[in-house]
C-alpha cells in the first residue's frame, strides 16, 4: 500500500464503497436481501445505497433465504450480477441447497456453458453476545465445496479490493465479513480505484521466529499476539490468506519454511475446519523445515454460549495465541 494514503474508512464503509463503485460501473449489479434497502441492513453496512441506486437495484426481499438465493442463481445465469445479503452467517444453512447443489455445480454440470457470477455476502464471528444461532463462523462449509470461492478479508483495504474483484468474478463467491469489525475496525483505504486478486495472501507483519496464519477477525488477534511476543523477543510473522479458495498455498508454505514454526488461527470450529486444512498445507509443504508441529486454534467445539465469560472462552485471543506461540518457540 502506498505511503501517501491518508483516508481511513471503517470495514463497513469500505464494503459499502466497493458496492457503490461496482453498481455505478455495471448496471447489472443488484443487491438482494432482508432489510437491505431503507434500513441498510441491521448492521447499517448498506446505508445510502438505495438512495443512490433505487429499489430496482437494492431489493428488500421476504425472509426467504433459500428463495432469494435461488433467485440470484437464476438471475446470475441470465445476465445479472446479483449480490445477496445473508444477514447472519448462521442462516447460510437455509441457502445450502442453492449454493452447494445449484450455484457450485452449474458451470461444471453444463460442461462450461452456463455461468453463475454472483456474490453472497454474509457475516461470521462470536463475542457479540448473540448466542448460538447468531455467532457461528461457518465458512468451512463452503470451502469444502468445489465450484465456490470463499473470501474472508481482515481489513477495510482488503475488504474493498476483494469485494470489487468478487463482483467481477464469473463464479459464485461467498464473502465473509466479521460483524465485530464492521464499525470497530478502521483502516487506510485509498480513494483511487483498486482491486485485489483472489488467491493472493498478504503478509500483515514480517517476522522470523514463528508464522501466525490468521483469517478475518483472527488476523487482528494474531497481530495482537505478535505485539506481545515481541516484548519477550519473539519475532512473529502474520500471514493472512485473504481468500480460502483459491488459496495461496505458496505464501503460507514459504513463510513457515522461513520461520520453522506455524500456528493457524480461525474463528470457525476447530474440528474438521479451516485450521485443519491450512495446517496440513503447511505441514505437507514445509515439513522438512519445521521445528515443531503446526498448531491449530479454532473456535471450541461447542455451541457458542450466551453468557459473556463463557462466550469469551470459545475463540482465540491475543493472549491465548501468545501463550501457544511462546510454548512452540520453547520460551517460558
Amino acid at each position, binding site marked *: 500500500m502506498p505511503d501517501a494514503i491518508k483516508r481511513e474508512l471503517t470495514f463497513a464503509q469500505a464494503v459499502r464503497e466497493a458496492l457503490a463503485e461496482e453498481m455505478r460501473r455495471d448496471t447489472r449489479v443488484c443487491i438482494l436481501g432482508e432489510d437491505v434497502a431503507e434500513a441498510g441492513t441491521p448492521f447499517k453496512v448498506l446505508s445510502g445505497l438505495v438512495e443512490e441506486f433505487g429499489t430496482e437495484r437494492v431489493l428488500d426481499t421476504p425472509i*426467504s433465504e*433459500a428463495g432469494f438465493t435461488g433467485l440470484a442463481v*437464476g*438471475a446470475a445465469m*441470465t445476465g445479472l450480477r446479483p449480490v445477496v445479503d445473508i444477514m447472519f452467517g448462521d442462516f447460510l444453512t437455509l441457502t445450502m441447497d442453492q449454493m452447494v447443489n*445449484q450455484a457450485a455445480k452449474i*458451470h461444471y454440470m453444463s*460442461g462450461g456453458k452456463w455461468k453463475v457470477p454472483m456474490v453472497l455476502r454474509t457475516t461470521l464471528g462470536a463475542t457479540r453476545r448473540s448466542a448460538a444461532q447468531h455467532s457461528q463462523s461457518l465458512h468451512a462449509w463452503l470451502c469444502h465445496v468445489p*465450484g465456490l470461492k470463499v473470501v474472508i478479508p481482515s481489513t477495510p483495504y482488503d475488504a474493498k479490493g476483494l469485494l470489487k474483484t468478487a463482483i467481477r468474478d464469473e463464479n459464485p463467491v461467498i464473502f465473509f465479513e466479521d460483524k465485530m469489525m464492521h464499525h470497530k475496525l478502521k483502516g487506510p483505504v485509498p480513494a483511487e480505484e483498486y482491486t485485489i486478486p483472489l488467491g493472493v495472501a498478504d503478509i500483515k507483519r514480517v517476522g522470523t521466529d514463528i508464522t501466525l496464519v490468521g483469517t478475518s477477525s483472527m488476523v487482528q488477534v494474531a497481530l495482537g499476539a505478535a505485539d506481545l511476543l515481541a516484548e519477550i523477543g519473539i519475532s512473529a510473522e502474520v500471514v493472512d490468506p485473504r481468500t480460502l479458495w483459491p488459496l495461496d498455498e505458496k505464501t503460507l508454505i514459504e513463510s513457515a519454511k522461513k520461520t520453522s514454526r506455524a500456528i493457524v488461527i480461525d474463528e470457525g470450529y476447530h474440528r474438521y475446519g479451516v485450521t485443519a486444512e491450512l495446517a496440513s498445507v503447511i505441514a505437507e509443504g514445509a515439513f522438512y523445515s519445521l521445528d515443531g508441529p503446526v498448531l491449530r486454534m479454532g473456535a471450541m467445539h461447542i455451541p457458542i454460549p450466551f453468557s459473556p465469560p463463557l462466550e469469551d472462552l470459545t475463540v482465540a485471543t491475543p493472549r491465548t495465541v501468545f501463550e501457544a506461540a511462546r510454548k512452540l518457540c520453547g520460551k517460558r
Partner: protein
Amino acid sequence: MSTASDRSDVGAGPGSDFWVNAYRQMLRIRLFEEQVNELYTRALMPGLAHLYSGEEAIAVGICEALTNEDYITSTHRGHGHCLAKGASPDKMFAELLGKEAGYCRGKGGSMHIADFDTGNLGANAIVGGSIGIATGAAFSAKHLKNGRVAVCFFGEGALGQGLLYEELNIAQLWKLPVIYVCENNCYNEYTHYSETTAGDICARAAAFGVLTEMVDGQDVRAVNAAANKLVERARAGAGPAFLLCNTYRYTGHHVGDINREYYRSKAEEQTWKTTRDPIQMHGAWMIEAGIADAAAIEAIEAEVRAEMKTAVDFAVAAPYPGPEEVEMHVYA
C-alpha cells in the same frame, strides 16, 4: 427464430402445420425415450434415466408457446422438456452416454442436461431445486426488460418443498414473468401423491394471489391454449402463473423400476395408455380435422424413427472425454 410479436398466429388458432409439428415433437420425445430404455437394457447407458413417456403433451404444448429466447428449467425427468425446447437428440444421447459430444460434455448426464442455445437452464436432480433458478431468470428478464418469460417445470413431488412457496411469494410480489408448471403424474417415486399432498393443489398457488389454472395434461391443444394465455400475460407484465397439468407416467420411476405392482396396478397403466394417450389422441384429432391422414402420420413416424436411430448411432460411436477434462469447468 420467432419472436413474441410474430406468434399471434398461435393464439388466434394455429394452422395445420403447427399441429403436425406438435405431433412430431411429441413423437420425437416418445421415440427418444424408447431408445433410452433400449440403451439401458443393452447396458450401453451408465446410471439410470427417468422417462417422460406419457407426459409429452405438456412439454410440447408449453414449449410451442415459447420463443427460443425464453427460458425453461427442468427436472430429473427432463428429456421431454429439453427436446421440446429445441435440443437435438444426437447431442442429448451423447450426454446420456457420458460422451464429450454431449450437451454438457458428458459431465451432466441425464439428470443435468442443459442447453445454453435454447434457453434450457438445466434439468435438476434436486426435487424442486430449479424453482429459484427459473424465478431468477424471470427476475433478469424483468430487470433487463428483454421481454423473455421463464417456465419452471416440476413434478407434483416438488409441492412438498418449501422453496416453491418462497418463490411463488416473491414472484407474485415482484410480478415476475414466470410460469410454474406442475406436472402431476400421480406418483412421487413409488408413492401416490394423495398420500403426500394435503388439501387442494391449485389453492396453494392461489393463496399467493398467483393466477392458477388446471388443464388436461394429455391434451396438447388444451395445454398449448393455456400456455399461450399465461405466457402472453406474463410477457405483458401481468406477473406469474401456476398451471397444473394432470398426466401419467407410463413406465417406471426410472428405467430400472420394472415391477410396479406394489404401488400401482397394470390395469391403471393400461387405462391411461389406451384411453388417454396424448399422441394417439392428437393423431386421431388431426385425421378427423383433415389436417393429416394416416399415411402422413406413418411417414412422420418413419422419419422420427430414422432420426433417433441416427442420433443413437452417433452417440454410441462418439468418444468419451479425455482425462484432461475432469478438472475443466469447475470455475469459469
